[in-house]
């Protein structure tokens, strides 16, 4: 395990879902889902297509209300966070496709707005946090490049830097490594380690593919409408195939785990 990873079991959870259910019309998408992420903990949420990952993420972030059960982010209801900057969110690509040539620095600086108050001009400390966030994802030399000139992996790292800029306590990433080149994956892994080491932040990674970070995970949660498994990756390896998940999916998640 890398330095900086490792959960603080005694601390109050950053994110806690209890008995969450959700249905679109009559078709149940989530049934009695409970999970927690604590400070310093690195958790992956995996599941096949249609397993309810995206719906669960929207419920956890407050853009969909839970029909049953409850969600608490930093102790608040997710739609009414008192300190929303404590949550760093990296959406699935491509939510941002810049029409106008906005630079990496301009995009990352927006990540600081909620923390300092969006009506305030940036202080020296804000500028320093933005510079630091860009450096931590290895884009220092490309900070002044228009983001629409970067490769997919570089753009994804810019969005991670935007989430880092607020120095969040919990980082939520939606499919951040799908289709990203190996060099970017390694930088991605390093930058997560950096955030967790620097700030003791918790990380929830929603992904199809864990190979880049499999070694660092504290826990894996397997979702297929309900939580099929929640525990350390080594236990998943031992009992994984009996979970009833599509058998072709498992090796992909566990690639790199030995």
């Amino acid at each position, binding site marked *: 395990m890398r330095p900086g990873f490792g959960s603080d079991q005694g601390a109050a959870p950053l994110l806690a879902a209890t008995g969450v259910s959700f249905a679109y019309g009559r078709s149940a998408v989530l049934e009695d889902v409970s999970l927690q992420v604590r400070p310093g903990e690195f958790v992956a949420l995996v599941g096949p297509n249609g397993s309810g990952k995206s719906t669960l993420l929207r419920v956890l*972030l*407050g*853009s969909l209300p839970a029909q049953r059960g409850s969600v608490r982010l930093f102790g608040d209801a997710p739609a009414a*966070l008192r300190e*929303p*900057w404590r*949550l760093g*969110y990296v*959406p699935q690509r491509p*939510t*941002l496709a*810049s*029409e*106008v*040539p*906005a*630079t990496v*620095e*301009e*995009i990352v*600086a*927006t*990540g600081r*707005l*909620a923390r300092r108050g*969006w*009506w305030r001009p*940036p202080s020296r400390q804000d500028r320093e946090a933005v510079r630091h966030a860009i450096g931590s994802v*290895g884009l220092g*030399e*490309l900070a*002044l*490049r*228009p983001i*629409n*000139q*970067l*490769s*997919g*992996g*570089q753009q994804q790292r810019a*969005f991670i830097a*935007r989430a880092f800029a*607020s120095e969040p306590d919990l980082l939520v990433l939606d499919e951040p490594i799908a289709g990203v*080149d*190996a*060099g*970017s994956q390694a930088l991605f892994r390093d930058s997560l380690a950096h955030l967790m080491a620097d700030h003791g932040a918790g990380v929830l990674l929603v992904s199809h593919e864990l190979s880049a970070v499999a070694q660092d995970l504290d826990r894996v949660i397997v979702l297929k409408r309900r939580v099929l498994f929640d525990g350390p990756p080594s236990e998943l390896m031992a009992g994984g195939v009996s979970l009833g998940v599509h058998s072709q999916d498992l090796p992909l998640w566990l690639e790199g785990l030995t």
Partner: protein
Amino acid sequence: MLTMLAVTLPYPFEPLFMQRALIATVTVGVFAPMIGTFLVQKRMSLIGDGIGHIAFAGVGAGLIAGVWPIWTALLFAVGGSIGVEWLRARRRASGDLALALFFYSGIALGVVLVSASGGLNASILGYLFGQPLTVNRQEVQVIVGLGVLIVLAMLTLGRVLFAVVSDEEWAGVSGLPVGVVNNVLAVLVAVAVVAAMQIVGILLIAAMMVLPVAGGQLLAHSFKSTMRWSVAIGVASSVAGLAASRIWNLAPGGTIVLITAGTFMAIALATRRRGRSATVPEPGDPGHLAEDLGPGEATV
């Protein structure tokens, strides 16, 4: 101020009416591209056109009610703009469809009201096609006043506006006031449309918001510099268009927009070899290039 300018300005700006036109037109050349930069980034380039048509209904209402049409146009445009935003934000209709609904209702209401008020006359044509050479002192004051309001709002709210128009979903999750910001932008668009209405005309307002940005983003390397270039193009085209319209007796609104379009084409031709969409190779990381290259060519 106007008298003093009359002494110093050369042909074709020496008469007082040209100086009024110049002040009003340059004001539009500043605020329209500024707001347009945000609209292009939001992929709502054509909203100005839709709001212009709603403003036309407001002009008709003003003529019937015997009120100065600027105020009724402002009322209609602000209402319509917030309505479009309301429909778009609640996904009751896509941005496109929301626009179409208001756009056609607006122009239809405008046609009905204008005919009821006595049909097309010179004043109506002025609102439709622009009449900068005949704006009076009071109209210039309103245009400059609204323009200053828009520019101040853009300068104050620029950062949060940029965050929201760039990535609305993310901005919402991150705790930025997406609803408020979108509505403020909608109101600013409406104010800009009404302020520009008499200069370039309802039918050409969207062009002044968007065409300078189309040229500016080819020259710029950041959002901020795109805005600066767009304003420079907007102001230069406004001055050149106004001069050309007096010298060759052309319709000023159309001339200004044609010069803006010509400027865009000239910039596009001059920059076409730069390969703007190409991937940037990362210093010291040549290994990923093969899989990351898009259809364009890599350039540094």
